[in-house]
């Protein structure tokens, strides 16, 4: 008598965010291929509204979990808890913002079309699967969906060789990391007898652990850490980051820094904190070392860069270090009834950093497009003269990344340090704060360029302005005088005399960036988030405090 196959019962509504993302992505691909070119902006609109719908559906799931508590879906393959929903909302919101950015970026180029947007949705789908995976194989599926989409997205600017190069590097190294990850799963399966996270935890609770299996588990954890370390871009698995971040089209860089990093951290949490709390004393020191290396090396490398995207890429590594500090704190309490504030701080940091990096990249993207795709730091020179509001927004986003109070960045950093100090990890907390200062220098350098220097080419007229009789110091050389006048020009007023009108016209010689509506929306949204969370973080921290009730 052949046994009848019984399919798992499926709660379709609980899966709806995933299904919407999948449906939207496939629809864009198929319909985009079969129909003639849509009017401008419609692809982006489709992708943004798909992601927005998924986010809203996820909010409904959140309230269901509030009522019924966490559980699993599809025969234990996916977790259904606050953490998964939090990450879904985060990833989908990022897709909405990045879609708007991409729309501006591809408009009028040969990249215009549904592909980029379909890939954004697929990548987000992969990220959501990783964040809610309750089975290591499912997590691998998510990882691959995300990675494959990202490989293509990085290389999507077919005209620029840097983009191709970045895509290739990311593909080769990413494939390597995926292999590590897969092998880690295999060893973990050997050690625990299951790939399902609930089963793994149950196995530990039942007390199966012999010496041989222990070695398998430890090796498996090590390999998993290599694979995920690559994805979160922690030192020493970071070498691809600067090249890829620099090479990718700027909105895609923002996407990788937000969605890519958040998904990888979510997976790290599922594997280490949820599945392997019983080995926390084994993996926590590794996290400690990764955090220390990321915190110390990345800002130092960032200082010597001359390309603003490269600087932000190293900045992203140092932010990963901060998140690892909070993660390490969470490791002290993994599996306990009182989870501490570590994990809460990680997700807060992820959300805050995602908003900051998308906003920053939006500004960079805007400026760099006006300069023919150049992303050197010098393109920002004189931005304050050309677009004071844009410069102010960029400044806010940068000081938030530096962690200045009353911005969301401070709340995030504070959370991480607080978590570490609570658990007694003083060394790493102090290193993190010292590293934050070095990192602040990097952001200040960008701010200095924005506010205190003038666009190249305007210098000559500045000097003319000085020698025409603006008060200047004694014989300290014209270069210094030029500097002083640069400040004057950056802040020249409309009542100033004819000489300063001349300065204004030189400022106008550099084509001012055209600010488009969609980018403006993205910048406004991220800046608002930065300030609101910075001034009144209570509600957001409360929200994030929910995530530690994992489905097991």
């Amino acid at each position: 008598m052949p046994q009848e196959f019984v399919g798992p019962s499926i709660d379709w509504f609980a899966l709806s965010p995933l299904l919407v993302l999948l449906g939207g992505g496939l629809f864009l691909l198929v319909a985009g291929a079969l129909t003639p070119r849509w009017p401008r902006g419609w692809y982006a609109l489709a992708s943004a509204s798909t992601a927005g719908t998924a986010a809203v559906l996820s909010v409904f799931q959140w309230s269901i979990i509030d009522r019924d508590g966490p559980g699993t879906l599809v025969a234990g393959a996916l977790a259904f808890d606050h953490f998964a929903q939090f990450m879904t909302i985060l990833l989908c919101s990022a897709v909405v913002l990045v879609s708007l950015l991409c729309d501006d970026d591809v408009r009028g180029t040969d990249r215009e079309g549904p592909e980029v947007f379909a890939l954004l949705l697929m990548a987000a789908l992969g990220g959501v699967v990783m964040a809610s995976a309750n089975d290591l194989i499912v997590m691998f599926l998510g990882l691959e969906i995300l990675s494959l989409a990202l490989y293509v997205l990085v290389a999507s600017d077919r005209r620029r060789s840097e983009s191709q190069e970045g895509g290739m590097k990311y593909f080769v190294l990413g494939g390597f990391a995926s292999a590590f990850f897969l092998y880690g799963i295999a060893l973990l399966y050997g050690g625990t007898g299951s790939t399902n996270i609930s089963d793994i935890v149950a196995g530990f609770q039942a007390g199966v652990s012999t010496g041989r299996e222990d070695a398998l588990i430890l090796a498996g954890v090590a390999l998993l850490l290599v694979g995920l370390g690559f994805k979160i871009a922690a030192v020493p698995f970071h070498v691809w980051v600067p090249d890829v971040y620099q090479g990718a089209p700027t909105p895609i860089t923002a996407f990788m820094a937000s969605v890519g990093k958040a998904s990888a951290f979510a997976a790290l949490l599922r594997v280490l904190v949820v599945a392997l709390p019983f080995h926390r004393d084994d993996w926590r020191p590794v996290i400690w070392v990764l955090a220390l290396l990321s915190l110390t090396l990345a800002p130092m490398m960032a200082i010597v860069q001359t390309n603003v995207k490269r600087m932000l890429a190293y900045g992203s590594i140092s932010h990963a270090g901060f998140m690892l500090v909070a993660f390490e704190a969470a490791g002290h309490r993994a599996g306990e009834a009182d989870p501490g504030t570590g994990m809460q701080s990680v997700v807060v940091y992820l959300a805050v950093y995602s908003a900051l990096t998308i906003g920053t990249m939006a500004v960079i993207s805007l400026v760099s497009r006006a300069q023919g795709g150049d992303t050197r730091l010098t393109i920002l020179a004189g931005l304050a003269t050309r677009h004071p509001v844009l410069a102010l927004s960029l400044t806010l986003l940068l000081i938030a990344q530096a962690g200045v109070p009353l911005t969301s960045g401070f709340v995030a950093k504070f959370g991480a340090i607080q978590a570490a100090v609570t658990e007694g990890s003083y060394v790493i907390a102090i290193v993190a704060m010292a590293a934050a200062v070095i990192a602040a220098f990097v952001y200040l350098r960008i701010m200095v360029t924005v506010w205190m220097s003038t666009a190249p080419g305007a210098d000559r007229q500045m000097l003319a302005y000085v020698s025409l009789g603006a008060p200047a110091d004694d014989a300290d050389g014209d270069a210094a005088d030029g500097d002083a006048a640069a400040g004057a020009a950056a802040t020249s007023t409309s009542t100033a005399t004819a000489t300063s009108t001349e300065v204004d016209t030189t400022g106008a010689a550099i084509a001012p960036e055209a600010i488009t509506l969609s980018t403006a929306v993205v910048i406004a949204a991220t800046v608002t988030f930065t300030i609101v969370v910075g001034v009144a973080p209570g509600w957001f921290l409360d929200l994030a405090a929910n995530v530690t009730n994992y489905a097991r």
Partner: protein
Amino acid sequence: MQTITTDNWLLTVGTFLPLVGVLVLIFIPKGEEQLIKTLGIVTAGATLAVGIFTMFRFDFGQAEKLQFFVDVTWIEVIRSNYTIGLDGISLPLYLLSMVITFLVMIYTWDNMPDAGNPKAFYILMLLLQVGMAGTFIAQDLILFFVFFELVLLPMYFMIGVWGGEDRRYASLKFFLYTMFGSALMLVAFLALFFQTGAESFGFAQLIEAGAGIDRNVQIWIFAGMFIGFAVKVPMFPFHTWLPDAHTQAPTQGSVILAAILLKLGTYGFVRIAIPMLPEGAKAWAPVIAILAVIGIIYGALCCLAQTDMKRLIAFSSVAHMGFVMLGIATLTEFGINAALFGMIAHGWITGMLFFVAGAVKHRYHTLEIKRLSGLLTQVPRLGWILGLCAMASLGLPGLAGFWGEFPVILSAYNPGFGLSEPLFRTLMVIAALGTVLAAAYLLWLYQRTAFGEPTEEFAGRTTHAVGAAVAPDHADDHHDAHHDEELRDVTVTEWIAWTPLLIAIVVFGVYPQLMFRVFDPAVTELVARLGESLNP
């Protein structure tokens, strides 16, 4: 700590009123310079008026209690509250910040730095005022930290955009030093919080619970706070940002920096580090005292070597803040009272000196001491004001500076709580030598700049600008332009901005009790508390 909650809206209004001005200013077009300046001054004036009203409502009979006390929930998750209050220690500093901002704004009416854009400049000064006032009223560690850091950015931009030639270097150095200090300070705050297991970051609770921490832990936590506050003060060897920042900052920036920002550090010691960690304070007191005295001597020697007037004044700040820190390190009522007086007096005097330096720079376009001479013949009133401030700064009895220095030296004779007497008495003698050096560098500065005849370069400029004698060394196009200007003595705007400070220097110099009366109850309470935990 007892609290009084009457009129508790006053502090919130007084602190955040400048923000209203900022909001209004944002919507005024850049071109309306007169309107912008007027609005800025009106806002600062209104803030000062609230401050003065606060002073009248302040119950001086109970200056040891926190008055106008507010405690409402702010960020519940991290257990930080919006707790504010004012006692005898913070009231004078709170008012000082308002007075200085107001006067600096008046001064800016005629003396906008070269880079222009009064809109941004006034907005930054108003923001700065919020941060400074907020730091002095905060009674919650996180709130304190937020205000403490809030000060950083406006000052960074003030130096970086409106500063001198080396402004980028100076502003970065300022920012990074201070940020480095506060980074460690924040870790120390958190460590303190978790070690005490207190229910909130409120000062009162942490003071209550802090004494219970193990002595070694206290020493470590104190170390973190020490670095944070010492950078801000600045104490030797963390002082190197100060000369650069002062020299490069516009006059307004220098005045605010000297008068208020440096006090945030010393205030932090008196308000946070010492009362919360009595054992740590006792262990660190000798170190602080030694560094303070090194600062006094080192600062004075550096002054003697300077060729730039503004840089000289900047180094004199290092020396003066050394006296303040020495007073604090004695952990006695007498010493801390004197230190607090020294803080206020230094604010007036050094603020005034920077004003004068700015005025000299505005007239002569140089601050190089050897090129200046004969201020008294060319601009006699300015010369006399410089003289008064120099005398006050070197601690002449009868002027405010004296009461910040002399009692500190006296207090070091008898340090509190069993601190080593031989050490402190030795330090006392060295610090006293420091006053001699102070007299030397200030008198020398005065002699070289104010006495004698004007140098050839500027000789012809007193009243007429005709046929300016051009010194061959500095003959270039710029200077021809300047030499056509008429050299004016103190202007009306300057008189308005400076007179209150000059009056204060004299009045409090003659009758210091006016100020000591305000500090004393709070300081007595502070030292009594220290006594409870150090000699149980």
